[in-house]
């Protein structure tokens, strides 16, 4: 049987040739992301800023009457609602701030829900209330700080691991590419105005996991080649490593992208933002392993000398790990 080859054998693409450009573009994009988040802000869901979100589907209509809803709900005296379509055209989420004093007296929040839902039902008999989320200011602050803490802890933890398993430069490279991926994803959410909630934190974590996986594979090959080709110039060595792992990189990214594309196209509407974030993360994560994590090693002066003193240790370590999986040389 003739097998399919996604990537030609023996590619020799000079990836690193564009490293300065890629780095510059990444820096610009990261700055733009930070700028967007600072000026436009993220469209935080009730998970992170507190408040109430009602999700509704207009089962008999093709599109939800967003403008009209904005007026009706706005006229109820609870302030202006944030109304957004999500997923299908006839589904909306209506977000409100919790009424003054609701922290002490939840009846006020209940009354607001009841009033909004009954006004929706009065105007649109076909409306179906799909869910109500109500999060107090205190809980949302906790969710936010815990989410951020978890994210930072995970990033720091894995970078320290890489530092121990490789060299400190690799740890720096890993954390830099993670910061890169996370920043750009934040930028994407600021740009599109997609809702940023707890599920998106889970998506960010997946992106971190994937991007790191990718970085580790390339780093592993770089380490191997550093020990094999002591005289090779660093840029060529990186190119060689990236090219050698290229067919794996392509194969894995394509494999992972398949279910994500399906999820974006056919998946539940509630997780549209979530699926988009992950799909975006795969692209950015793959790119950053090649164009951020790898070239940083040149700038941090990694060379064949980096592994000379620890040559034996690393070699025997590699063997031991091989044996952990039952493989013997």
């Amino acid at each position: 049987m003739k097998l399919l080859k996604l990537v030609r054998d023996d590619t020799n693409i000079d990836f690193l040739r564009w490293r300065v450009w890629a780095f510059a573009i990444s820096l610009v994009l990261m700055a733009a992301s930070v700028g967007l988040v600072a000026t436009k802000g993220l469209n935080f869901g009730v998970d992170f800023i507190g408040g109430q979100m009602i999700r509704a589907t207009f089962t008999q209509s093709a599109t939800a009457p967003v403008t009209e809803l904005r007026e009706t709900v706005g006229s109820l005296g609870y302030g202006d609602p944030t109304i957004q379509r999500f997923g299908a055209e006839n589904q909306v989420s209506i977000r409100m701030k919790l009424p003054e004093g609701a922290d002490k007296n939840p009846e006020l929040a209940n009354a607001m829900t009841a009033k909004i839902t009954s006004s929706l039902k009065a105007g649109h008999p076909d409306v179906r209330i799909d869910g109500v989320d109500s999060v107090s200011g205190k809980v949302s602050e906790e969710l936010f700080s815990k989410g951020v803490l978890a994210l930072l802890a995970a990033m720091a933890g894995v970078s320290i691991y890489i530092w121990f398993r490789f060299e400190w430069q690799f740890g720096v490279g890993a954390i830099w590419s993670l910061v890169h991926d996370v920043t750009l994803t934040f930028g994407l959410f600021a740009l599109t105005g997609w809702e940023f909630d707890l599920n998106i934190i889970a998506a960010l974590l997946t992106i971190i996991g994937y991007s790191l996986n990718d970085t580790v594979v390339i780093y592993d090959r770089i380490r191997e080649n550093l020990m094999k080709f002591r005289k090779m110039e660093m840029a060529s060595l990186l190119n060689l490593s990236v090219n050698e792992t290229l067919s794996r990189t392509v194969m894995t990214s394509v494999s992972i992208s398949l279910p994500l594309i399906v999820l974006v196209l056919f998946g539940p509407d509630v997780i549209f933002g979530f699926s988009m974030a992950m799909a975006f993360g795969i692209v950015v994560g793959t790119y950053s392993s090649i164009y951020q994590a790898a070239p940083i090693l040149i700038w941090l002066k990694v060379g064949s000398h980096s592994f000379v003193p620890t040559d034996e240790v690393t070699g025997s370590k590699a063997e031991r790990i091989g044996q952990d999986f039952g493989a013997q040389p």
Partner: protein
Amino acid sequence: MLDFPRWRIWMLNTVLVVGMAFAIPSLLPTSMRAQLAQFVPTPTINLGLDLAGGSHILLEADTSQLSEARLEALEDSVRTAMRRANPQIAIADVSRTNGELSFNVTDMSKVDAAREVILPLISNTLGARDWNIGVNNGNRIILSPASSGDENALDQAMDTAKDVIDRRINALGTLEPTIIRQGDNRIVVQVPGLDDPEALKALIGKTAKLEFKLVDEQADPDQTAQGKARVGSQVLPYPDNPTGLPYIAVRRLGGISGDKLVKADPTFDQQTNEPAVTIQFDSEGGQRFARMTQQNVNKLFAIVLDGQVISAPQIREPIFGGVSQISGSFTTESANALSISLRSGALPVDLTIVEERSVGPDLGADSIRRGVLAAVIGTTAILVLMFLVYGRFGIYANVALIINVLMILGVMSFANATLTLPGIAGFVLTIGAAVDANVLINERIREELKRGRRVVQAIEFGYKEASRAIFDANSTNVIAAVLLFIFGSGPIRGFAVVLMIGIVTSVFTAVTITRMWVSLWVKRTRPTELTI
């Protein structure tokens, strides 16, 4: 590497079969699962509320109010104990400030006797002190809360509150609530399948502390309207006051509390035919109620629920037998809810809803249906691609991947874990890692063949060299998962749990199991050429 002793093959196969067997109950339709459950235990995966639909309510206790209540109770018991002491000990100038209770023992010589009376009141069953006792200026006794006392009190109050909520929800019927304590002062209530939690909230949010107090009939209405009461009285809100003033003054002392109930039922007032609630005291409460009504015929008494007066009828005659009726402006539903709350006891502490999420069953079902569809299409696409690219080795990887999914489900079922939306993200990541492990191995074998190694050697090297990267990649994921579990909150933890399980099963299936299959195949056919 190609040497797999028979016992090892058996062991690996056993692990596979057992792991997958646990997934079976979760994959069966509910009716078949029920039949199976008659013969064997069938632990299943719970679907999170975001997938299955239902209500999630997070309640937080008001701890400041708890200390206040403890102080009040302490004052009560101290006063009673001093009165009952033989000989009686007179105390004066009782004050509750800064969370401390202090009072003067009028007769200096009785300070020691007073201490003796108080000591049993402030020691708990474990022998530790709930309150610290001190004496100032010779005769002023000060009781200040010991920190362990506050913690114990909160802990007990939360346990009781959890039981009370459990009883109340059970009274609603066939719901299957999960009620768990979270942190020091929170309780999570999750009810699958309930998308309109109004009734539930009305039930669990109420403290249901019932008190009967005498109305201060000498109070000046103007003063009451300003919230001022005479010494020994207090002003309480009374929204349905027939006089139109939404406040009423009641006497602080001489009332009784309604926590000694044996029964509470919704009923109809025989005169007005409006909904009401009948209550029956236990014998001690009944006697106290009889005494109170006997001593105060023709006076007004206020029925106070959670600090708010619901009605203030006149005591026409002494009430013996401990049965009483509470009327107010009830609807049939609210009378029913109140009787459930009273029956299951008052919450020992006020609980406020700080987070509430409900997902309609339609949305939940839609999420599952489309989620499953996407998962099936996505996985099929991966399987096809892997086969096209790696041929025989692709098939090994594919079977391992399917087993991996089943094993994750199996372990989750065994642990009765909950699958949520973020959990699915964890799933995607582990499936990705499993696929990647096989891609790494197969690419490496390809490479080694290209370098001119013989088939068996190439396979050996492929597994060995790829294992290093697989190990590092999975270790980083384990580290991330553990940190997320430690630092994250609810949904993030759901992600971390799936990730931790998935890493173990995916390394096991994608590396160990495929290697076993490959080695068996190599042994059997002794291939000299390999298409990969």
